[in-house]
């Protein structure tokens, strides 16, 4: 399935045989792009961004489904080092965010460093050469430092529904939307009620004949205060960047207050729960539908969704919410466990992403030949969500325990960028060819995450979510105030790393 995206006017570069590079970055979403921009800002040129798609943007390039938008205000959900005074709305849609990423990439001169169509198939550490050997669908290369910014919301998760393959109509995942497929007049099944479904259903409901939402767990939904940004405000932001910075700071502080309730004192979540309940009761009159949409777990345990049109859409005359659970898919229908068969033309899988078992982890092998996935089989362990013992010169962006559900992911990414850049600087300053964290550092970081996760709403709120791995451990979320993560990653914790100096007479600089 390909979307109807227009090809990017920007062209990247190509790999040359035997190419060696200082830093290879996997992915060009907010994380990979952010690193590339920061490297360019420091005058670096010895780096490449390996991108499997045909343009930068990552999640925001891929998620083109109708209604796709960000749940965090744009003033906050953008690079601090690339402010955009022209955001059209409080919450921007996918096209605006993608345009911002493209424009920022172009302005920063990172397109010439991007290799498009280069999906990393395997990357292994060559301990003799002290290099990463990276193979991609666009060729091979050697890198002194490898940064994986492949992201957590990158690879669609497909539900294991019997018969799905036999469906005669169209099946599409929200993250692989087929814009050419016209849903007008169709009977559409939407599987899932997460952040994507809550945006898709209101967007398609007016045009389809009927929309059936197959729900496993209802989400808590709060109102979305979305407004156009006035031209006056935009003028002010353009002339007075400090004003936009102040707005950004205020939004950050307001969102950070949620952590008090989610991770510290649960009773502080009660008003948020009351707000969500009033939102539901104000928008849904039907008692049976209201009951089906009422969550039975503490608000915040799963991601809180924000929408003003989700409840009206599922209460529409042509909508239905089904809680019975899908038993199987037949060529022209969806069958639920209660023995009801609903004729269906198109199935939309709004089933999210493979988050706790990252596909890229299966493709990166460390010093002893084992992949990250194998090493992490018993649970993901890292130092500061960024480095892994046995994987020298590898940095993870948006890796384990860096996720946030309450605020801007870009804030966390920028915290990580500072850490990676300081590591590169340290390698250059100390003339190190290899930098590797220790198992002890990982263990104490694991304990820190476990201790901070204890008692949080994500572990004890009475829900299952993509925040937890199959062992029930929080491996996805940063379980504390995000400014604490920033403090922890401001500089490289040099004491937790072993460095190997470059042999005399070689050129050890690593993009610093």
């Amino acid at each position, binding site marked *: 399935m390909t979307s109807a995206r227009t090809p990017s006017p920007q062209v990247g570069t190509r790999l040359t045989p035997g190419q060696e590079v200082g830093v290879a970055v996997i992915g060009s979403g907010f994380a990979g792009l952010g690193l590339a921009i920061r490297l360019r800002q420091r005058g670096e040129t010895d780096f490449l961004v390996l991108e499997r798609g045909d343009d930068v943007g990552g999640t925001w390039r891929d998620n083109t489904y109708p209604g796709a938008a960000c749940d965090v205000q744009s003033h906050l959900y953008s690079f601090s080092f690339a402010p955009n005074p022209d955001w059209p709305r409080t919450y921007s849609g996918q096209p605006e965010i993608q345009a911002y990423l493209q424009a920022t990439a172009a302005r920063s001169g990172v397109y010439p460093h991007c290799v498009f169509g280069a999906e990393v198939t395997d990357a292994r550490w060559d301990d003799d050469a002290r290099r990463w050997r990276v193979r991609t669908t666009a060729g091979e290369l050697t890198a002194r430092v490898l940064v994986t910014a492949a992201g957590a919301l990158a690879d669609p998760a497909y539900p294991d529904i019997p018969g799905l393959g036999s469906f005669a109509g169209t099946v599409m995942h929200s993250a692989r939307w087929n814009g050419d497929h016209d849903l007008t007049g169709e*009977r559409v099944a939407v599987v899932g009620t997460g952040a994507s479904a809550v945006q898709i259903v209101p967007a398609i409901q007016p045009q389809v004949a009927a929309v059936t939402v197959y729900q496993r767990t209802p989400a808590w939904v709060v109102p979305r205060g979305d407004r156009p940004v006035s031209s006056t405000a935009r003028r002010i932001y353009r002339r007075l960047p400090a004003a936009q910075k102040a707005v950004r700071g205020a939004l950050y502080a307001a969102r950070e207050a949620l952590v008090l309730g989610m991770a510290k004192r649960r009773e502080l979540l009660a008003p948020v729960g009351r707000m969500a309940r009033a939102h539901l009761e104000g928008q849904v009159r*039907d008692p*049976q539908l209201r009951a089906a949409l009422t969550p039975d777990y503490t608000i915040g345990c799963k991601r809180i969704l924000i929408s003003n049109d989700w409840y009206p859409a599922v209460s*529409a*005359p*042509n909508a239905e919410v089904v809680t019975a659970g899908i038993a199987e898919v037949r060529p022209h229908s969806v069958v639920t466990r209660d*023995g*009801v*068969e609903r004729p269906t033309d198109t199935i939309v899988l709004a089933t999210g992403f493979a988050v706790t078992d990252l596909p890229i982890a299966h493709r990166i092998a460390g010093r002893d030949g084992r992949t990250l996935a194998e090493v992490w089989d018993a649970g993901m362990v890292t130092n500061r969500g960024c480095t892994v013992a046995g994987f020298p010169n590898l940095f993870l962006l948006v890796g384990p325990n860096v996720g946030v559900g309450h605020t801007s992911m870009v804030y966390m990414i920028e915290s990580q960028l500072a850490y990676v850049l300081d590591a590169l600087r340290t390698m250059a300053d100390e003339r190190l060819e290899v930098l590797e964290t220790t198992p002890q550092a990982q263990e104490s970081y694991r304990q820190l995450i476990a201790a901070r996760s204890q008692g949080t709403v994500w572990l004890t709120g009475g829900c299952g979510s993509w925040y937890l791995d199959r062992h029930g451990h929080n491996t996805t979320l940063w379980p504390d105030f995000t400014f604490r993560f920033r403090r922890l990653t401001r500089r490289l914790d040099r004491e937790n790393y072993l460095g190997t100096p470059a042999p005399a007479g070689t050129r050890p600089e690593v993009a610093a």
Partner: protein
Amino acid sequence: MTALVQRQVVAVRTPDGAQLHATVEGDDSAPVTLVLAHGWTLAQGAWDDVAAELAPSVATGELRLVRYDQRGHGRSTWGTTEPVSIDLLGEDLTAVLARCAPTGPVVLGGHSMGGMTIMCLAAHHPELIGPRVRGVALVDTSAGELHRTPRTAAQRLQQRLEPGLLALALNRGRLVERLRRLSPPSARAHQRFVRGLLYGADASDAMVRRGAEIMHASSVRAFAVFYPALGAHDQRDGLSALTTVPVEVLVGAEDRLTPVRHSRQLAEVLPDAVLHVEPRCGHMLPQERPALVADALRRLLTRAVEPSGAR
């Protein structure tokens, strides 16, 4: 898995732009379709108990079942027609038939205002009665004269004040909604009131609560604009079309909204109609006696698919 039940939600568009939320269950090839119309300030959920009684017939493919929310009720929207009338609901029902049961024999069941809806359909589309509509169940309903001529000074005063009060309720809809929320269906006083108004001696608390919840979900507007429409409903002279098909008339002996005399009047005008007065029941027979209502419907359904001539 054993026999599956087909189910789909359909938004039926009326000529004036209303969208009616309909639920269609059963196989398209079933020999007969039953369409159920609910009462004032209720929704299709009021038929749930009757539908459960009929579910086995739906599962075996003997019956298609269509339930829908009347305009302004449940999930259905309002059209542009103002003021609304029961005649308009009759037109809505023809739209539901055209969209959800375009061919084949049909049996109609109406509770309270839903019964009046069927009478209006029969009066304005007599051509449908017989060829398409093969039987009608009229439950707790009336052909007219619901708002009686006031006799006492108090009743006269009430009649004088009613339009103003309704207009006030409409204009202050938000306030009224907020006041309604002060006494939710979970409140004992709320349930006592609903029981006293609508239910008979045998009604269980759970039954009353469920009915109260459905009514609580309806809007002030649905209450206010259909109240005068119900008063204006008068099909005592328009029932002749229904003399050609089997009709079952059911009413609770303790019905206070459409008392037994209304059903007796129906039975008089429709001499072949079967009248059943159920003791210890009020105005909510589809909830209070779902088996009784389902039995009446089944009799009609059986006759509807009998070879012609049996009628």
